[in-house]
């Protein structure tokens, strides 16, 4: 199964990172790539570089800043191939982010292929992570209700034609992207007093929750924002576009 690690930390405490973090990070990555666990991952530039796209009063609006104001900010991500959640949590528990922050572990939707991410960025381009966010609380509640009443499995053939058309239209700048399982499938890993503590749920309660992401490679921010503006979720949710750490 594939899992996403969402690294979060309070940016104000970035300077408190112990110096051993860098070599630890390199060792973690070496090991996880070697074991075939780590498929992709990157650090993100600070939230000051983030830009969001959402619909307000029927109009698409571009604004400065991340999709939600949270105590801890998203600082990076990893895509893992693991046997199960326990293994994913164990892999997260060994990550140096836990010196200063936390890691949300969440499965992707089933059936995602192995991402192919070129090692080097094309000349004159840069990479952006686009977080696709939407308020999924109602959908989650409906799903729970269906499970309770046993109604479930009502062949809800999801219509993927609009998202397919979008992928097609941004094929020149989209490397790959995956939808995530609902946030109620997430666990968040922290280190408290030297012990690893796992809590149920995402790293923060926000109005919109992360529903998936796309990795983009663009000449500039406007190209990335164009992909966000035309995304099917833009009409009801929020898309955050942020460059990867340079």
């Amino acid at each position, binding site marked *: 199964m594939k899992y996403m690690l969402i690294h979060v930390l309070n940016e104000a405490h970035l300077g408190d990172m112990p110096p051993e973090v860098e070599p630890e990070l390199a060792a973690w990555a070496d090991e996880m790539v070697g074991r075939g666990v780590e498929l992709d991952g990157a650090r993100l530039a600070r939230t000051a570089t983030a830009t969001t796209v959402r619909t307000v009063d029927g109009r*698409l*609006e571009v*604004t*400065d*800043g991340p999709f939600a104001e949270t105590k801890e900010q998203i600082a990076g991500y990893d895509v893992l191939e693991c046997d199960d959640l326990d293994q994913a949590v164990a892999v997260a528990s060994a990550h140096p982010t836990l010196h200063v922050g936390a890691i949300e572990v969440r499965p992707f939707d089933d059936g995602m292929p192995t991402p192919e991410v070129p090692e080097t960025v094309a000349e004159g381009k840069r990479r952006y992570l686009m977080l696709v966010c939407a308020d999924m609380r109602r959908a989650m509640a409906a799903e729970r209700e269906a499970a309770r009443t046993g109604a479930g499995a009502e062949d809800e053939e999801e219509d993927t034609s609009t998202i397919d058309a979008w992928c097609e239209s941004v094929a020149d700048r989209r490397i790959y992207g995956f939808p995530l399982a609902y946030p109620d499938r997430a666990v968040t890993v922290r280190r408290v007093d030297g012990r690893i503590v796992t809590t149920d749920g995402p790293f923060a309660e926000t109005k919109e929750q992360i529903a998936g992401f796309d990795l983009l490679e663009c000449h500039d921010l406007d190209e990335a924002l*164009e992909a966000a503006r035309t995304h099917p979720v833009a009409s009801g949710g929020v898309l955050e576009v942020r*460059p990867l750490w340079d």
Partner: protein
Amino acid sequence: MNGAGDQAALPLSPHEFSTSWGRLVAGLIGWCGDWDLAEECAAEAFAEAVSAWPRSGVPDAPLAWLTTVARNRARDRLRRRTTERAKLSLAFADATDEVAPVHDEDIPDERLRLIFTCCHPALPMPARVALTLRTLGGLSAAEIGRAFLVTEPTMEKRLVRARAKIRDAGIPYRVPAPEVWTDRVEGVLAVLYLMFNEGYAASSGESLLRVDVSAEAIRLTRSLVELLPSEPEVRGLLALMLLTDARRPARVRRGRVVPLAEQDRRLWRLDQVAEGAALLDPSPPWGPYAVQARIALCHDAAADPEDTDWATIAELYTRLPATPVVELNRAVAVSMAQGPAAALPLVEALTDALAGYYLHAATLADLYTRLGRVDEAAGALATAIEQAPTGAERRLLRERLEALGRSGGDTA
């Protein structure tokens, strides 16, 4: 880092200075891709002009002179740096270098790229305003800080963050693509109008220390009219600014804001009224700025408050997006054109939409007063006083309440 040094020593009008500065910085950013470097070297070039031009006279092509000086400074700085980014900038700059132009007319005007980037929606609004004033208008961080009542370090930090976001998030330095063109032009106009209004509001108070930001907004919009001749709303905005600003000499008396009806109209600047009126397209369709400009013109054209063409004003308000505040203004115009009875249902219909907005209660009070419904007027005034944001407005409303008591006593 001071703006352009002692620019007052240069034989340039404020408009000439602003234009030269904006064109110089715009060209330098296009040349080296580094906003900080471009601004620093533009400031140094102007500083050199301050010492050289009074001795040797203004060169035939001042912008070409400034560009050459600034580029040489930039090259020196880039050579001293050792970072990869600097080497890249230098290589790029050298590659795109051309023979210094002899005439200023031969230098392309790149200010359009600059203004679209400064007003990019990915930047916070206050940063857009500050960055536009700095890079296009040539105001220093200290001057902009004074205009917006923040300290120089705070303003400097705001500018540094904005430039960092442009660099780190990859905000492009170019005019926007056709699919976002309309939105982005609107965005630029919104920044300029906000700048104008902030400056205009500030001109009521402790204005002596303040830089005239509304004059700067007018200057920049004037330039934009030249740069975007096919966008009628740019002219509409310039007209709106000029037609509003024309009343400025009469707007404040002894430190207090004078209501429109009580202003000494002989002080209004008729040259600005004429210029603003000439910018307006004679027939619709008119964009929101052009419509607001026409409303301003209706006021400006009245030698006495009684001469105001309220019927036209009421009609013009129907051409604006019908927000509750627009509807309230329309109701006021209707009350002047057709009497308070016609306007009352319009204002009462807005009670929920404008709950908590003191001007709604104040307008209601005015209509009740004119209809002789004194008790209801007093009630509405009490609400307005409670909701009024500043002491000056509360004072004005209390005076009205007292006047109501007296006239109420007379009629009772």
